[in-house]
């Protein structure tokens, strides 16, 4: 709603009455008082209001028996540089937090692994189940930490000739594919001139999202890769419920997430990485979510 400033005499208003006005809900004209300013030299009260129109502001004052001396519509001037400074600070804090959490999480992860390796054969199923729960929780924290670190890491691409299958295999080695999900990889290897680590980050995100979308039902994730004349097209297609239509246009936006524990960084990082490679990534629905990555064919520079 637009913002308005009006001015009128202080009249009979006490400080308490003004405070109550700021705390109160919108009136029947849709007007909400946001703040008051007082100039003692001319004994005038200036009000900042959120209201549908100038008339509604006059009506609001008329109801409380005050005549406005003026009403004018104003706009907020956003200080973008301040916002970017704040964002940069938040980014630094998030990075530091992510780094700080990594080591204690790694201790927990290694201890669970040691318990499982050393004593797994003698543990009863209940304890094994608890260990599995802890493992899943740790994986979830790790995934969020990696999302933050992948997002802030601004590394120049280190391209090399690499096969899509080796990139996918590396990605899958850090993801637990549940037994209810059948994952199929491209039939044939397709060679890319790309940064394998960065593409692993992309597939990590897409596979993790697909697994979460399918949930506990039986499902499939199909990854295909084909070479066209001047480009390579890679698709990741899951059998989950798909992406709601209202969410699709915003799915690659920074900090946009529909998950309770999502960071809103994963798909944004995917888009950044693919665009760094000169490619595109698109999301659509086709009996489940379908992500299509198009990478230009490149030859190594000599």
């Amino acid at each position, binding site marked *: 709603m637009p913002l308005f400033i009006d001015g009128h005499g202080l009249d009979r208003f006490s400080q308490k009455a003004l405070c109550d006005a700021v705390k109160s809900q919108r009136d029947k004209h849709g007007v909400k008082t946001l703040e008051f300013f007082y100039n003692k030299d001319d004994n005038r009260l200036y009000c900042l209001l959120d209201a549908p129109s100038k008339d509604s502001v006059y009506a609001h004052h008329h109801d409380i028996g005050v005549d406005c001396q003026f009403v004018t519509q104003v706009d907020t001037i956003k200080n973008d540089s301040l916002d970017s400074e704040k964002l940069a600070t938040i980014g630094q804090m998030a990075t530091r937090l992510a780094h700080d959490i*990594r080591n204690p999480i790694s201790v927990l992860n290694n201890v669970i692994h040691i318990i499982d390796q050393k004593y797994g054969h003698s543990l009863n199923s209940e304890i094994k189940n608890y260990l599995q729960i802890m493992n899943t929780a740790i994986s979830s924290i790790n995934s969020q930490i990696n999302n933050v670190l992948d997002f802030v890491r601004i590394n120049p691409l280190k391209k090399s000739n690499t096969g899509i299958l080796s990139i996918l295999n590396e990605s899958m080695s850090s993801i637990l594919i549940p037994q209810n999900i059948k994952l199929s990889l491209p039939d044939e290897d397709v060679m890319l001139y790309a940064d394998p680590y960065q593409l692993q980050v992309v597939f990590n995100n897409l596979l993790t999202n697909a697994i979460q979308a399918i949930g506990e039902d039986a499902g499939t994730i199909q990854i295909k890769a084909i070479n066209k004349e001047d480009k390579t097209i890679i698709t990741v297609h899951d059998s989950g419920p798909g992406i709601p239509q209202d969410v699709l246009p915003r799915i690659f936006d920074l900090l946009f997430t529909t998950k309770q524990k999502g960071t809103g960084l994963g798909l944004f990082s995917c888009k950044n990485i693919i665009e760094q490679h000169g490619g595109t990534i698109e999301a659509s629905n086709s009996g489940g979510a379908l992500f299509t990555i198009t990478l230009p064919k490149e030859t190594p520079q000599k």
Partner: protein
Amino acid sequence: MTDRYLNRILLRVIVERSLLDVGEPTIDILENTLRETYGCTLEDCYDHPQYLKDALCELFGRAYAQILSSIKKEFAKVTLDKKLESLLLILDR
């Protein structure tokens, strides 16, 4: 919990995990060697990485390279302080 305390523990669990992963469930032997030869614990190797390298080489000989590879893989997942960076350089030398 201080970073130093945490990183000493991290070193311990990563070495133990790496030994298990390469089929050497022999953390006790490593700890005995460190205690008897250098009068230190596995956690103390955070400050004395050469002791760890010497003990691992002495005990596991050719398998050292495989153990080192596993240790490096696990340390690649964490945030390294200067001591841990230096420890990896010494183990790798």
